């Protein structure tokens, strides 16, 4: 696996709606810019070999880094695969929609739910939103949130950006009634 660059983002929201957020709401993202394993091969019918060669390594690379960057217990999480213009979205999906990838994060964070995801194709510098949901119960409304990411020079046409996102809490100033109150 050829990794060109690793990007780490740590974001703190200290006030929202004009009121303090205490403690500050933290979200972390770690992204790897990798060479598309199927670049230049035309239409590859069976993606299994590329998945086996890369997906677990990517999960092992990103999961500990995003947990360390967050610096607090993970309460919500998500993932992203942003494919460069010469690739298929299926290439990005192949790398992140497998337990080989996600289990590294799930196990390290003692999480139970599936990771919500964004898959998208675009030019270097494309803006993408990573959806995050609660790590043990995806119906917990307070933790539905998204985080916006942009890497200035990635992905190149033959690259894929693979990212994990983690939040230490739900939305800043979250105050919606629980889903159960509508049932």
């Amino acid at each position, binding site marked *: 696996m*050829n*990794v*060109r*660059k*690793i*990007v*780490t*983002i*740590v*974001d*703190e*929201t*200290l*006030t*929202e709606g*004009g009121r*303090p*957020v*205490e403690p*500050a709401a933290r979200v972390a993202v770690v992204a790897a810019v990798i060479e598309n394993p199927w670049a230049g091969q035309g239409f590859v019918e069976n993606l299994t070999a590329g998945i086996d060669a890369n997906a677990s390594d990517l999960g092992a690379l990103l999961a500990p880094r995003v947990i360390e960057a967050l610096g607090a217990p993970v309460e919500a999480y998500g993932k992203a695969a942003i494919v460069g213009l010469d690739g298929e979205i299926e290439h990005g999906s192949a790398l992140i929609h497998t337990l080989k990838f996600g289990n590294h994060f799930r196990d390290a964070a003692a999480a139970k739910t599936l990771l919500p995801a964004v898959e998208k194709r675009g030019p270097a*510098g494309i*803006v993408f939103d990573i959806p995050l949901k609660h790590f043990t119960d995806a119906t917990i409304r307070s933790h539905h949130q998204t985080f*916006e990411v*942009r890497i*200035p020079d990635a992905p190149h046409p033959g690259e894929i950006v693979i990212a994990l996102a983690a939040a230490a809490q739900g939305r800043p100033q979250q105050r919606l009634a629980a889903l159960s109150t509508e049932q």
Partner: protein
Amino acid sequence: MSVDLEPSPGSLDLEAAPRTPDWLRRIAVYREEVLLENAAAPAVPALKATAAAVIRNPWIGTPSSRDLSPEVEAIAPVLARELTGRLIATLGGTAAIEAFGKAAIVGTRGELEHAGALIHTPFFGNLMREFLEGESIICFADTRADAGETLVVPMWHKNHAATRSHYQTITARISDGPRADEIVVVAAASTGPRPHARIGDRRTDPTVSASTIAKGTK
């Protein structure tokens, strides 16, 4: 707030400021580690990062003649401390940092002078230089823009500004800032040179002028 510029960073008393000032909305740290550039690992690996704060512009509605110094003296030292502290933490310590730069983006209801006020006075620049243990003038970029604008932040060597290997940039962007009445203030730093710096330096340059080019001697 009174700030003594002489003592070491550890003795700077900024504790009088509230832990979360109501003018401070968001702080984002962005770090890049280049593992491969043009298919080869950098001979000298480096990390580079920005730390950006989104704050309320304290001068909205004030005239162009307004003295900016009271707010500069209250706000800029807090920003210098918060932003350089995060750079030091994310880049592996003060000693690891070799290059630095700074920037500000003012929202559309503010003056460009408001952005400059927060980064171009000793209340930010001297403190950033002191906290990062540098000696150079700090290079900069500024602009006025809507939220989500990207700004390329220049950096150069913190002790020897003419060191060509350390001329580099990093791109800063806050998705939802600055709002029209906000300012984004950015501190940037790098732990090393460009990935494959190989364009010489002043010591190795030939003599080049219009006449040497015309003569074909260089």
